[in-house]
């Protein structure tokens, strides 16, 4: 079976400034893989390139063995990739329910919707179904953004810094939920993060990114050694 996600020599640029340089990265089925790096290391750009909001300047992105070149972001979402943008980016004037409905565009070939699971993991969304998303707290919006990417039962979840602007106890709760749903539903997760705790709580293994390059790969034991990975993160 091919890996769920495979990036080979991927470079990407805004205008003419290279932000990603020759990135190689693989995510196997059922894994939770992290990419750690400081602000400006190119983490969000990597996520945007994988989902297709940004065209790579060179290199290949493969999803379940298929080259994604020439496909648009909506086609990639339809094929089963659930994307959670940085800064949450819920639709502020839509209600919780309406936000989730937009997420039904993810993974068109699914056998069933995961509304029950989403409301189970994030009961606050159930309570706030008819509330406008823009009026909720940062943590609640983050849960909504995750739930929205999840209702379509994606095969691969792309998570862009879920800790940003969310209080630590909520970040922990969200990380725990993601581990649980990975175990129960088998959803593969690729996340980028600069929060040490979130990385240690979630990742099976982790890539380190500096100035747009992958500079190291860190296994499960090494991940628990704070000193070993702290140098890759903002101090």
């Amino acid at each position: 079976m091919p890996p769920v996600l495979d990036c080979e020599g991927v470079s990407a640029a805004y205008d003419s400034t290279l932000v990603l340089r020759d990135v190689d990265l693989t995510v196997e089925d059922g894994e939770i893989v992290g990419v750690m790096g400081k602000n400006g290391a190119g983490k969000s750009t990597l996520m945007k390139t994988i989902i297709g909001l940004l065209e790579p300047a060179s290199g290949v992105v493969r999803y379940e063995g298929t080259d994604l070149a020439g496909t648009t972001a909506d086609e990639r979402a339809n094929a089963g990739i659930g994307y959670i943008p940085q800064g949450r980016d819920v639709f502020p004037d839509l209600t919780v329910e309406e936000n989730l409905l937009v997420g039904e565009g993810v993974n068109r070939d699914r056998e069933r919707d995961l509304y029950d699971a989403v409301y189970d993991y994030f009961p606050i969304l159930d309570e706030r179904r008819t509330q406008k998303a823009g009026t909720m707290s940062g943590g609640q919006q983050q849960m909504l953004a995750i739930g929205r990417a999840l209702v379509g039962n994606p095969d691969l979840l792309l998570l862009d810094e879920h800790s940003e602007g969310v209080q630590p106890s909520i970040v922990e709760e969200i990380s725990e939920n993601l581990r649980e749903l990975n175990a129960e539903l088998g959803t593969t997760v690729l996340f980028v993060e600069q929060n040490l705790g979130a990385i240690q709580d979630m990742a099976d293994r982790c890539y380190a990114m500096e100035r747009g390059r992958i500079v190291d790969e860190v296994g499960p034991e090494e991940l628990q050694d704070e000193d070993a990975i702290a140098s890759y993160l903002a101090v």
Partner: protein
Amino acid sequence: MNALNLLFQFADNFAFVVLAAVGLAVIFGMMGVINLGHGEFIMIGAYGTTLSANAGAPLPVAMAIGVLVTAVMGLILERTIIHRLYDRLFDSMVATWALGLILTQGMRILFGNSIPQVSTPLGNIAYGEFSYSTYRVLLLPVALLVLGGLYVLFTRTEFGIRARATIQDPDTARALGVDTDRMYTATFVIGSALAGLTGALYAPTLTVVPGMGSSFLVEAFVAVVVGGPSVLLGTTLSGGLLGTIDAVFTNLFGTFYGQIAMLLTAIVVIRVLSDGLTGLVETVRNRVEGE
């Protein structure tokens, strides 16, 4: 001045403002494109209706044909021209203005300066010394029905929810599997069909000529500007405000002063409320909820 007379005048104006503006408002509010050819889209709807009726179609069928012709034209123009102009406000204004000129002159070349007109159906309601066209009175419920239909479409259907998600954040909507290009095409076609409907509805009451689009343009643009960013609420509120002002001034001083009063209202609203009437409603609502 007579209260009942004023009421009829208001109903007539409200329906006219709402129907003139609604297609323009949907396209502007949802896509940020200012369609300066809007009046000519209405004219195409009117021509489609009148020509079909002249060819022997019953009026309701002729109207449906008028709407369909305008919608198909909107689809073709969006796919060939308009879709290149998103996020290019001024370019899109010049291009749609040019489209309007081409449509006007094109109709003149094809059908001449005038075509046989369709007469207004349904007779008159008379009371005392006044008499009103039943058909024009019925345009008020039709306008309300159009507003209600759009409200349901944009708030209660999956299409509407995806369309609103697309306006609020196109990139995120696309990354969640929404084909945003198709959303824009569909929205432009809906806006065109609404313009066509306006043309179809007014075809039996106005003189259908190639230049008739301009008679809708003032009301349409003033209504959209006065209404502000929220499409449906804005169109309804400006229909109410402008309809009232026009009715009062037309009754007191005549049609000419009614138009002047509407334009003055637009200037005052733009000066005082930069976000139009819906901006004012938002501010008040936030203040009330804040307490």
